[in-house]
């Protein structure tokens, strides 16, 4: 019975989306808010008792089948499942989503009703997608939710429909994740062919039993899918620009859920990754590289949202490191803690930037600490968790666990540990920068804004959770079937020292004129090592040249020029769409032009005429005369009798 309860969990957001998106009536503002909040919070209400029951041990692992189809040896079974991963992840997602929804109700209060509807409809659809990813018991529901998230993220990033930047950012996010999604789809299909079933519980053993080369291919494809969704190197370019969306979007999509979906994927399929040392090492290296890269770029940021975006990919790098080191439970713990403090950071940063006049530049946050003290306090808590402030913050415990797992994984792991330690120190450097900036006395006194309880309530809750989350790390790791790594006192002290070094570093960077000037000059780093430009030069431009050549039109040079000047955001002028249109035109010219122009029309028209004539002819059978029918019956009877006679001839 309870199994079917699981199926209900993603339904309220889906229903909310349908109601908000398709409702023909013009709902008034309050109704939209009420529907959105109800739909956004209902999953938490539905799932909380289930999850608590699971953690208390009164409910075991269950699978709720929704739909099953058999094709010969292949089985397609859509289902939801409750196991350690889905219980923890879904609970985290529902908690964070509820907080974000409540916060968004306040944050979006000034938007037009139509925009509000669009926004909340997509947020709810997104939530439904994420819930189906974490709770899926089969690869179809998993991939469906995964794609749903990709689609929603495109719409939500492009929420500001007047801004070409937002559109370009949404498109970039969509295309980048799509490239990775193709790899993921290929990997899942290969797994399906191995297992002849879509159940994840069947896929993993089948993947493990597969021949070596195929298994490696599958693992690599899954890894690429995860890297793309999580904005890890080399797919990291989409996330910083995706900050064009509203703050609640960033808080939900780009901290706790969507980018974390890649980590969820890897944790879910961790046995496949771990089975091949090479793939596991690649995962760990990608994770560490992104962690360092993200931290470095974040240090150089002047925009608080972009700073947080780089910190997101950096933290998810830590999760990947944990998966690569064979400790998915630790990754899960870091996922939960990161979801809590990162959404907190995004949302409190949103309030702070409201307080300082709507800018997201760190420099201009000056004095917002006095205008919005509660939000500032919660931001500090979040930043401490992000930087891994020793002992007090949940972030320290989970990060220590990740680092410990790396140390215990042999010499290679210890090398990665050193690099990750550097990244952890850098995390401290950037995490506190907005704090110091906000504490500075303002150039002109900012008016104290009223901190609405709708906005502050979730912040306080999440801040409390980010502190108390320290106690969750151990239980989560154990629930996931792992052990909390204890790599010895020295390692832990090193971690604490790194965090404290980060704190000192941030003071230096913020208050020493030399260093702040250096930060200001670090253009290259700020633009994410100009990876966008590199991709543009080596991938996008050649591709567009090919497309232009194929489409046989050079008239679009002007748009490409425009795009070159605006490198980060592109401005492609839709070469793919043009290519297909031109392909169609070319086909029309080559294939159909040799014929009489209207040949196809004539064929169609003649066939309709023939159908009509056949109808007229067939109608003659229906004379309406009784005798005709009787004769037809008599004829048929005669034929039957003769047939019967013939068959009994012998």
């Amino acid at each position: 019975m309870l199994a079917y309860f699981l199926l209900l969990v993603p339904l309220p957001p889906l229903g909310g989306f349908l109601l908000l998106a398709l409702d023909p009536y013009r709902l008034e503002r309050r109704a939209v808010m009420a529907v959105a909040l109800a739909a956004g919070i209902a999953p938490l209400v539905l799932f909380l008792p289930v999850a608590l029951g699971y953690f208390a041990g009164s409910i075991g692992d269950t699978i709720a089948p929704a739909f099953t189809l058999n094709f010969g040896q292949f089985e397609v079974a859509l289902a939801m499942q409750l196991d350690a991963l889905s219980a923890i992840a879904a609970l985290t997602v529902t908690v964070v989503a509820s907080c974000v929804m409540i916060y968004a109700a306040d944050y979006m209060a000034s938007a037009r009703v139509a925009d509000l509807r669009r926004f909340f409809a997509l947020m709810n659809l997104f939530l439904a997608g994420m819930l189906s990813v974490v709770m899926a018991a089969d690869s179809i529901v998993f991939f469906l939710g995964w794609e749903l998230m990709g689609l929603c993220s495109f719409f939500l990033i492009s929420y500001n429909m007047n801004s070409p930047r937002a559109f370009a950012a949404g498109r970039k996010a969509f295309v980048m994740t799509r490239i990775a999604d193709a790899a993921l789809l290929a990997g899942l299909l290969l797994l399906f062919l191995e297992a002849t079933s879509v159940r994840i519980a069947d896929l993993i053993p089948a993947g493990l039993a597969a021949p070596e080369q195929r298994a490696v291919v599958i693992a690599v494809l899954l890894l690429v899918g995860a890297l793309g969704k999580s904005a890890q190197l080399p797919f990291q370019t989409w996330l910083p620009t995706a900050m064009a969306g509203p703050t609640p979007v960033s808080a939900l999509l780009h901290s706790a859920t969507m980018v974390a979906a890649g980590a969820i994927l890897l944790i879910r399929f961790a046995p496949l990754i771990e089975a091949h040392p090479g793939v596991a090492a690649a995962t760990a290296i990608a994770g560490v590289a992104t962690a360092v890269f993200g931290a470095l770029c974040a240090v150089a940021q002047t925009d608080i949202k972009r700073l947080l975006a780089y910190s997101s990919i950096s933290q998810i790098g830590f999760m990947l490191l944990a998966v690569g080191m064979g400790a998915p439970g630790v990754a899960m713990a870091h996922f939960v803690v990161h979801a809590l403090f990162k959404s907190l950071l995004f949302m409190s940063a949103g309030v702070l930037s409201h307080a300082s006049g709507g800018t997201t530049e760190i420099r201009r946050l000056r004095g917002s600490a006095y205008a919005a003290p509660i939000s500032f306090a919660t931001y500090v808590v979040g930043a401490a968790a992000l930087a891994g402030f020793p002992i007090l913050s949940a972030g320290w415990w989970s990060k220590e666990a990740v680092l410990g797992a790396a140390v215990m994984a042999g010499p290679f792991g210890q090398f990665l540990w050193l690099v990750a330690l550097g990244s952890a120190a850098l995390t401290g450097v950037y995490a506190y920068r907005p704090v110091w900036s906000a504490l500075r006395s303002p150039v002109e006194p900012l008016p104290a804004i009223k901190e609405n309880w709708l906005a502050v309530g979730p912040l306080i809750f999440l801040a409390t959770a980010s502190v108390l989350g320290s106690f969750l790390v151990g239980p989560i790791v154990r629930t996931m079937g792992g052990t909390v790594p204890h790599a010895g006192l020295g390692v832990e002290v090193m971690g604490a020292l790194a965090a404290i070094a980060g704190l000192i570093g941030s003071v230096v960077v913020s208050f020493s004129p030399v260093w702040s000037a250096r930060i200001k000059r670090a253009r290259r780093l700020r633009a994410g090592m100009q990876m966008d430009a590199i991709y543009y030069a080596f991938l996008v431009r050649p591709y567009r040249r090919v497309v232009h050549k194929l489409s046989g039109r050079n008239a679009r040079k002007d748009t490409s020029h425009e795009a070159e000047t605006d490198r980060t955001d592109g401005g492609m002028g839709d070469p793919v769409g043009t290519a297909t249109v031109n392909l169609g035109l070319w086909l029309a010219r080559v294939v159909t032009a040799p014929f009489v122009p209207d040949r196809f029309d004539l064929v169609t028209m003649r066939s309709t005429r023939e159908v009509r004539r056949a109808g007229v002819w067939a109608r003659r059978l229906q004379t309406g005369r009784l005798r005709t029918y009787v004769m037809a019956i008599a004829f048929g009877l005669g034929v039957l009798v003769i047939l019967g006679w013939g068959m009994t001839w012998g």
Partner: protein
Amino acid sequence: MSWGFAIWAATLALAAAVLSVTRASAVHALLLLLASLLALGAAFFAMSANFAGVIQLLIYAGAVVAVFVFVVMTVDASETAMAHERKLLRSAWRWPALFVGLSVIPILFGIGGGAMDAGAPAAADTRELGLLLFGDWGVATELVALMLIAGMIGVRHLGRSLGPRLRERGRE
């Protein structure tokens, strides 16, 4: 009675039926129908199916034909009408005859086989028949009764609406 008489009576019935469907005059056709039904009744008696024979005479040859008689009385029986009727039949009989022949010929070939070894026809017990109709076949009997009631209601309906609508049509 005997099979021989039953066969002879049934043959008479068939002959009367064939004549009946080919008559131009409705009165002749009706009389031949009556003859056919009476001959069938005789065949039933010959087969010791007395109850069936009695019913055949009373209901079929009696009531049904009586109803027909009332209707036939309204039919135009003039010489021109007869000629018209004959012309219609002459123009239309070939295809139906062909189609019916399709079925009849195989059946004629199917007569053979078996020996003339049967004893006298067994008499059907009327009491047993009643037990059957109102016992095992109760539902079927009820359905037939229902059908008769439906027929009655239908006739009542058609008959009632006849007057005013006919008058209306006459005016058109």
